[in-house]
């Protein structure tokens, strides 16, 4: 048995352990459930896509990056279906990041707070 063999991150088995480490994980999870219920993809299709992502060799052996893989799988599936292209996601992500920077501490972060959003909507 190799010394470097990955240990299984055995938990406590408690019935009430938190299910998400961060809110974005919960949102990414829920989006997949919602899109499936709307018929955007079948569950088998989703499982196949997720499986491909978690099988990549750079995936963390302790599963700690599971929801990052989950999100990557969702993005690829949406891009394949022409529902949200990579460039579009990048652009809106950047807008959210600018909005966060421009929002004073203690105020909710809104996409409208993006200083460039006014300019963008003028162009449209």
């Amino acid at each position: 048995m190799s010394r470097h063999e990955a240990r299984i991150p055995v938990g406590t088995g408690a019935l009430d352990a938190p299910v998400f480490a961060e809110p974005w994980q919960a949102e990414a999870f829920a989006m997949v459930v919602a899109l499936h219920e709307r018929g955007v993809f079948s569950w088998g299709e989703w499982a196949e896509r997720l499986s491909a992502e978690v099988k990549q060799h750079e995936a963390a052996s302790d599963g700690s990056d599971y929801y990052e893989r989950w999100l990557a799988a969702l993005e690829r599936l949406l891009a394949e279906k022409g529902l949200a292209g990579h460039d579009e996601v990048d652009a809106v992500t950047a807008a959210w990041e600018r909005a966060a920077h421009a929002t004073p501490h203690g105020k909710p972060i809104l996409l409208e707070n993006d200083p460039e959003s006014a300019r963008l909507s003028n162009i449209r």
Partner: protein
Amino acid sequence: MAHDHDHHHDNELDPMAARVKALETILTQKGLIDPAAIDVIVDTYETKVGPRNGARVVAKAWSDPEFAGWLKRDATAAIASLGYTGRQGEHMQAVFNSDETHNLVVCTLCSCYPWSVLGLPPVWYKAPAYRSKAVIDPRGVLAEFGVTLASDKKIRVWDSTAELRYLVVPQRPEGTQGWGEVQLAELVTRDSMIGTGLAREAQ
């Protein structure tokens, strides 16, 4: 093009959080998701579905032979009769531990898991270490969880799929004759329903 400044701003969005927000924005604008529905799903999985559902199924199977028989024949229907139904249209199969056989569930493909009765999977269930080792060396896996079985006990490993998911019904602990379902359910742990643990002993 402006380069990134690393000094601290008032508000920061974690890069993953920003991407999730971006997807939510795009999908909402296209009418594919409703943010209110997303909140309901999150709340459901954070507070309403979890291994307590499965514990109730197991406790009922322990105390009601007719229900146990139904659970063996048609787990999907028996579990649905308690109000727990899968959202992905998946089928359930209950696998019963016995004196001869211990059952262990894994998803080698990704992380298929019986959400309706166990909630969302723990981190270790999704970890490659568990997913690969459960099939090759189930006894070694059980040892990592602190479970040692008699050497002549068979271990059956069940590989979940998107369509078929398993619930392990652990053996009922000794000394629980006459216990009610609520009391029995307290002895059922999440791990005992995946097969990486046993039910708690009666105090």
